[in-house]
Structures are given as structure tokens and as C-alpha cells.
């Protein structure tokens, strides 16, 4: 008895201390989210019901006009959606073989290859995007080479949706490779051996073993890639020559040209809502019938 009696306050003390410690450790992250994620969202939502102030900006009001216009002017949104879906698929097509190769075929120097994937991040995204101006350009770039090869009068790549697509896939590819690589790397190789032992061909093994194993990585990767693609601004502006008018460009027009913050906010909120619904639906769709298996989102 006495031991139990003595133990209890001690346990309570330690649990109080534990909770305190938890609070202290969680606080910075919580504050970070509250200040840098929640409050901007709240502000944008409040702005979205306002009106444009006389000299631009935001003036308090409660109107729905901004949303009506956001929905009515949905072309940039639809175009963004098309580009982001195509870009995500493009990323997958490039990333899957590469991730598979590094995860399963490389023995030595695996770390080096992974490092090579990270190295581009050491350079500013903007500068890398500018580099594509040269790579695709008319002088020494792809367009020039194609022109010389085919003898065509003029090959124009920059300024077209193709250039934007190349930029999108290039820019976000690592975000697709890493989750795929991680899942494939952890894959139990004996499953493949078992599959082969049981008489499955290469394609059947790939389809029935590798793909399902890679699926969580693909779901994570596609979300990581799709979301920023929806709001992309720099790539269509620089590689697209401002000719592919995406959601990000529309937001810039609202905020910086029209200086109509409520209008821009409404468009942003509309985008956020549609994205949440889309991604929730997507995760649900992928997870259905797989309730026992975890699909990691991050």
C-alpha cells in the first residue's frame, strides 16, 4: 500500500511536468501556425467580403459581389486546373522510373544520387527558371537547335503553354520523386521474389506489387506537386511570356494592377475552397477500400 501511495503523487508530478513540457514544446509550432497560417487566412476571408477602398486596398463591408465575380471570371482557374493536372501527371511519368531506379537498381552511391536531386534547391528558383530561358531559347537553346535541325522557318517554344509545362514539371519534380523514392526504398523485396516465384510476369508484378506499394508515395507527391502548381506565377510569367494566364497571374492583376484586395481575396478563398474539396475527394477516392492501410499525406 505504502509504495502505491508514494508512487501516485510522483506519477502525478511527472505527468504534470510532462504536460508542461509538451505545452512548451508545442507552443512555438502552434504560435507559428496561428500567426503565419491561421491569421492570414482569417484576414483574407474577411477581406474577401469587403469593397475596394477609394485609393485601392481594402475597405470594410459585407458583400458577396467579389465571389460572384470570382466565379464568373473562372477561365484562369480552369486553365490552372488543366495545367496542374497535366503537370502532376507529367511529374509522375518522369519521377516514377527515376525513383524506382534509384530505390531498387542502385547499390552503391545511392546517397550521391539522392544528393544530386537536392542540389538544384541550392540555387534560387527564380534563377533556375531564368536558366530555362536559355535552354529553351532561340539562340543556343532547344528552339534554335530544332530550327537548325528541321530547317523550319521559326520554332517557338518560349511563350507557349509547352514552355510553361516544362517549367512546371522541372520545378516540382523533386517533390514527386522523394515520396516515391521513400516508399519504393522501403518496399519489401521478398514480395517481388514471391510474386515471381508464383509465376507472375514482370508487368503483373509491377502492377500488383510495386504500384500498390508506391501508391502512398504517389498520393503524397501528387498533392505536394499539384497545390503549388495551382498557384504558380513565376513560371507562366517568365517562361510563358505572360501568355498563359493562370490563377497566380489573375491574383497579381487583382492585387497589384486593379489594387482590388477584396476581389483578389475572394479569388484566393475560392481557390482554397476548391482545392480543399478536390484534395479531400482525391484522398478519399484513393483510400476507399483501403481502410486498413495508411496513406500518408506527408
Amino acid at each position, binding site marked *: 500500500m505504502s509504495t502505491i501511495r508514494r508512487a501516485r503523487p510522483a506519477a502525478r508530478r511527472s505527468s504534470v511536468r510532462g504536460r508542461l513540457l509538451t505545452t512548451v514544446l508545442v507552443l512555438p509550432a502552434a504560435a507559428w501556425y496561428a500567426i503565419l497560417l491561421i491569421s492570414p487566412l482569417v484576414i483574407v476571408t474577411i477581406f474577401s467580403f469587403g469593397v475596394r477602398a477609394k485609393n485601392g*486596398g481594402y475597405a470594410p463591408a459585407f458583400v458577396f459581389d467579389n465571389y460572384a465575380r470570382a466565379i464568373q471570371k473562372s477561365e484562369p482557374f480552369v486553365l490552372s486546373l488543366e495545367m496542374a493536372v497535366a503537370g502532376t501527371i507529367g511529374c509522375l511519368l518522369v519521377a516514377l522510373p527515376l525513383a524506382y531506379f534509384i530505390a531498387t537498381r542502385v547499390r552503391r552511391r545511392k546517397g550521391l544520387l539522392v544528393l544530386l536531386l537536392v542540389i538544384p534547391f541550392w540555387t534560387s528558383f*527564380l534563377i533556375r527558371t531564368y536558366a530555362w530561358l536559355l535552354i529553351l531559347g532561340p539562340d543556343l537553346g532547344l528552339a534554335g537547335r530544332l530550327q537548325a535541325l528541321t530547317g523550319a522557318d521559326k520554332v517557338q517554344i518560349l511563350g507557349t503553354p509547352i514552355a510553361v509545362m516544362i517549367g512546371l514539371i522541372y520545378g516540382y519534380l523533386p517533390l514527386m520523386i522523394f515520396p516515391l523514392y521513400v516508399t519504393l526504398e522501403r518496399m519489401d523485396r521478398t514480395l517481388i521474389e514471391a510474386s515471381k516465384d508464383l509465376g507472375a510476369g514482370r508487368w503483373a508484378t509491377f502492377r500488383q506489387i510495386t504500384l500498390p506499394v508506391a501508391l502512398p508515395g504517389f498520393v503524397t507527391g501528387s498533392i505536394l506537386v499539384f497545390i503549388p502548381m495551382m498557384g504558380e506565377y*513565376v513560371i507562366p510569367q517568365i517562361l510563358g511570356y505572360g*501568355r498563359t*494566364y493562370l490563377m497566380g497571374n489573375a491574383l497579381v492583376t487583382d492585387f497589384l494592377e486593379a*489594387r482590388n484586395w477584396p476581389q483578389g481575396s475572394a479569388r484566393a478563398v475560392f481557390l482554397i475552397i476548391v482545392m480543399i474539396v478536390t484534395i479531400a475527394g482525391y484522398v478519399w477516392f484513393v483510400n476507399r477500400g483501403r481502410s486498413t492501410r495508411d496513406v500518408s499525406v506527408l
Partner: protein
Amino acid sequence: MAERDLDQALQRMGGARMSRRGFLYLAGLSSAAAALAACAGSSASPSTAASVAPSAAAPSVGGGASVAPSLSAAPTAAPSYEIEKQLYMYNWAEYISPKNIDEFKKRYGVTKFQYDVYDNNDALLAKLQAGGGGYDIASPTAEYVPGMVEQGFVQKLDKSRIPTLANIDPTFQKQWWDPNDEYLIPKDYGTTGILYRSTLLPSIPASWKDFYDLVKGPASGKTVFVDSMGDVFVFPLKMLGFSANSVDKGELDQARTILLEIAPHLLALDSNTYGTKMAKGEASLSLGWTGVLEQQMSKVADKGYVVPSDGTIYWLDTWVLLKDAPNPNAAYAWLNFIQEPAIQAEESDYNLYATPNAKARPLVDAKILNNQAIFPTEAELKNLEGSKDTSGNSQRTDIYEEFKQNIGKG
């Protein structure tokens, strides 16, 4: 905001002068700055408060007239004000001739001339909203001044103390930003116009009408517009003979027709690297600003710039006297001094911007004066219109967005 960072990065690379104009369309951000400043409270107290205590009389420089060599054709004031020994100026980088600063210090016995710099109007505004930092004088772009007046950051000028104001060209007076010329003094200006490469075009455009024909013809697919709503509208509206600042529904409808007709012929909408596109020959024609001519296009021999004969808009940087200026007398002395013709001509020689000072104009170095990209001719000057903030007009925004969606489509 990436584009903004890019702008600034490019400016740093190309010197502060490259796209002064690019900053203008940020005017609207001021309200956010206001909100932030309100949150921050008036934390920044005038940093120079202590040093502003009435100084002992500056040695025998009661007025400019007695000491000044008579550089000015205009009557020089002989104010009986005691000129403080210091002047605190907040301005754009490399925007004032050091020679003039030395001359001013010598002539008025000012020993401390503080020249601090900002790199966009919003930085200036934020400083003012945070208490002003104890500056006497600043140089906002004209569009910003009404807001500054509204918020009480700027003093009404005592024009009797600035007789050299008579030297200012009337083109730049009584504009919407200061209808009675009470608060600002024009400092430097520049235009929106046509950039071209003569060897890549069959003819050189002289007007927006010529520009229109070229874009639809030989320069189709080789024309770039800067991505700035106010500047893009100048072209169709001026070509049609309307005000560049028009918000008339019928006039804008006509402008829309032209813009949508032109859109498929454009190579790009690009405010950052249109000079590079021109330099590489990817583009032969642009609607833009003059900054890139000396920067991205510095090595291009056949470049040219035209102020369209059917008119265009200009931007204007100004002098304002700040509220609670700690050294008002030195400030007035400066404002008067800087508009003396010879002094003002030296300004243009140094900073390579056009001066709105009509008397100074003939004294400017001929090389600079005859550079069309810097100085519009006297005739062109008559067709200039001050750029007005029309971004609140939703018809304009709708048209601009439609235009953007149609660029290169066809």
C-alpha cells in the same frame, strides 16, 4: 510577390535608375502599410529631435541673394529667415548631384547635409507613417502625394519663399495630384512610349497609329508590352484621341476593341526583361519605359525611343516639405536653390532624368538634352498627360484581364 523581388533584384543589378517607373503601380499597397503602421504605433520618434534645437545663427548667411552668384534668371529671394545648419533629406539613391549639395552647403553655411535613401515610394510612406524619421524633405512620385496630404504628412508650401518656382514648365502644373500647386514641386519626369530596333523594322513609328500598324503587320509576334495596366491603356486611348486616363464607358469600349485586336500579335507581356528580348532580337518593338535602353539594351546600336506624336503619359517625381520638418528654413532654401536654372541643369546632367524646369532645359548638356529617351522635344511636351490612378475602374480591369487572356492567342 516574386515579380516584385525580381524587379528589385534587377534594379540592383542594373542600377537604381532602371525601372523607377515600375514602382508606381504599387501605390495601392499604401493602405496596408497604413494599417501596419497603426499597429506598430508611433515607435519611431524623430531621430534628430535633439539636434534640431535652434542653432546659433549660421555665420552671415541671412539670405541666398547676398552670397549667391546670380545663376538665376528668376528673382532670388532674400528671406530674413535664419537658415539652420543642417538639412535632412530622404530621397531615391543617386538622385541629387553631389556638386549641387556641396554648392548648397557652401552657399548657405549648412554643415550637415543628411542624404538617406529609399528604393520605393512605399518605403517612404512607411517611414512617414511611423513618425517621419525627422526628415525635412522627400521626393515622392506625384501619384503618392494626394494620399500623403490626406494623411497630413506634407506641409502646404509658402510659395513666396520659393520664387524660382516660376521656372517650372506649366505642363507640369495644376495637375490632378495637386490642382492648385500647393504641396509639391516637380522634380524629374519620364514618359511611357515606343521602343524599337530600327534595323528589324521596315519603318520607324512616330505615333501610336504607326505602332498599331506595325504590331499588326511586320512586328507581329515580335512586340512586347510592359505588364502595367495604366501604361497599356495609353496606346489605344491616345491613338483614338482620348485622354489616356479616360474612364468613359464608350471610349473604353473602343479601346477594348483595339487591345483585343492587337493581343494575338504580341510576343509577351513582360515588365522585367523586355529590354533583353529586344536586345536579342526576339522582339523588335515594345510599349515601355526608357530605363532599359541604357541597361538591358546598352549594347544595341539600332535602338530607338519615340514619344508618340498622338500623346502619352508621364510620371513625375516631386519635392515635398514634410510636416514637422526640423529645419524648415534650410528646406525652403534648398527648394528655391534647386530650381535655379544652372543648378537644375546640373541635376539632369548628373541623374539623366528630364527636368520639368523650363529655364534649366537649355542649359542641360546637349548630349543629354538631345537624347529622346531622356528629354521629350518641346513639341512632344505639349502632348504629355500626367498619369492618373484609374485602377479603381472595374471596366478597365475587366478589359485588361480579357486582353491578357488573349495575348498570343489567335
